[in-house]
């Protein structure tokens, strides 16, 4: 019994460590009196209203727009490219598919900073236009491998007889692909899409190094970086961090709960 209490309290301590900074920032975001890093000023939502009234509002909205734009475009491209190529890779010969799989993993295992600087070298040497093109190519490159990896295992699991049955019943290969194979891998395509969207939104290093100086493009993470570097942490940011925490945690909780109910349903169907 004592052991159990000790174990629980250890877990609790580590959890407290993991959440302390997050919770602290949430509390700070409600601190009044503009006093930095102190809760003595009482409760206020001043820092939240300042999101809309601050002189940084236009830049912030612009960064948000860029983040979303890049995330949507690159995750859509990655999902399509990843799905098509996963189907293609599944039909490649053994040797070839092993090679492609290994290369596909390189962006995943490589450290981000190395990828970022090699893109920088590549883009400047070949004279790619600065701005969105570079960023989207970069994001698609590190997102697509995850889409492929989300889909490949499912392709191997599907019983090939189902596909053949469709052909026997008179479907053309194209029709069998759209009516049989695609619907069966749809959940994996979706999770690949969500994954690449999240990755693209979350990315900092590759965006920071490849956004270029003249284009003036800032995403949320690079804007936070630049601003915190110049001005330190302003109360304004605490409220934004809090909003981001809440959104991220809510999305994850929903995704996980949904996944749980789905997998239960899947088991019953079998």
């Amino acid at each position, binding site marked *: 019994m004592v052991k159990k209490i000790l174990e629980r309290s250890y877990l609790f301590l580590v959890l407290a460590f993991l959440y302390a900074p997050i919770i602290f920032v949430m509390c700070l975001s409600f601190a009044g009196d503009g006093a930095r890093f102190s809760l003595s000023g009482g409760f206020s939502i001043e820092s939240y209203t300042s999101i809309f009234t601050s002189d940084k509002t236009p830049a912030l909205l612009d960064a948000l727009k860029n983040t979303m734009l890049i995330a949507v475009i690159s995750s859509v491209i990655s999902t399509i490219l990843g799905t098509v190529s996963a189907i293609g890779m599944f*039909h490649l010969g053994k040797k070839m598919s092993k090679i492609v799989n290994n290369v596909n993993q390189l962006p995943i295992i490589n450290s981000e900073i190395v990828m970022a*600087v090699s893109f920088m070298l590549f883009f400047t040497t070949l004279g790619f236009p600065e701005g969105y093109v570079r960023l989207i190519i970069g994001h698609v490159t590190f997102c697509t491998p*995850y889409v492929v990896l989300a889909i490949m295992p499912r392709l191997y699991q599907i019983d*090939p007889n189902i596909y053949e049955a469709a052909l026997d019943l008179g479907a053309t290969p194209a029709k069998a692909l759209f009516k049989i194979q695609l619907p069966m891998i749809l959940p994996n395509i979706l999770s690949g899409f969500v994954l690449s969207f999240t990755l693209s939104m979350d990315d900092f290093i590759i965006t920071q190094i490849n956004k270029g100086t003249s284009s003036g493009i800032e995403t949320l993470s690079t804007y936070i970086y630049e601003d915190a570097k110049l001005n330190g942490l302003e109360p304004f940011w605490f409220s934004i961090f809090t909003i981001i925490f809440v959104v991220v945690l809510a999305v994850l909780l929903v995704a996980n709960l949904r996944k749980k109910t789905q997998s239960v349903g899947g088991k019953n169907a079998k």
Partner: protein
Amino acid sequence: MNRIKEMTKGAVSFIKGTPQKIKSGLKNFHLTRKVFSYPYILFLLLFVIVPTAMIIVRAFISEGKLSFDNFATFFTDGASLITLGNSMLIGVLTTVICLLVGYPVAFILSKMNSGKVLVMLFVLPMWVNFLIRTLATKALFQAASLPLGLGAVLFCMVYNYLPFMILPLHTTISGIDKSYVEAAQDLGADKVTVFVKTILPLSLPGIISGITMVFIPTISTFAITEFLRGNSDIYLFGDSIYIKFMNNAWGVGAVMSIIMLIMVLISNFFMSKLNDSNDGSQVGARLW
């Protein structure tokens, strides 16, 4: 990006381990379907192989000629070597602390019935952008008027990467067959012996992958030390690669990138080796 590496690892070993036989039924369509992969193969060649090759070639070019000058510059420059040493030191310290804190967590979680839900709680913070987590740590340190510097950097590294240690450890430990433990007990081993002789060796793949998941990102991040180093001059490998490229010292930056790349490949080699021998069976509790 790292967290997903851990989560997709199962998928990778799954693909590798699947017999190719199933596909023979579809032989007739190989010719047409495999064409689908060609655009992506081209894409990979252009945007993965070529940039990586360029970075490697760039390291050997100095003042327009092929030479080893960049390597000579890097390995004779005291400041770069200190950076390399500092990175290693902070990387090792972070990894050791994460392992010492994370192993008991993973071990306790694997014994609990509600372990899977709790794991989620431990993993959730890593989905928040690392910049935000870093700045939150800075706010905490400033509010508590704790000094920035090595301590703050270490705190933030452990805070940022602890979930990457807990997750693979937990998957491995909860995948251990309980009958090994029971067999050891039946044969008269006491608790400590059971742990040292069965659980610890069996969780080795998790330990190795946890170490990689923490060590490599720790030495290659930039921005974390920038906010937390305070008055000390701690630069990590990632920071100095960034600085070298921003200051137009591309050749030396490329040399450092190669060193980083080699470390990544070595650690990945060990990881895949361990995974192959373990059949990659621990796909279990993943967030996605």
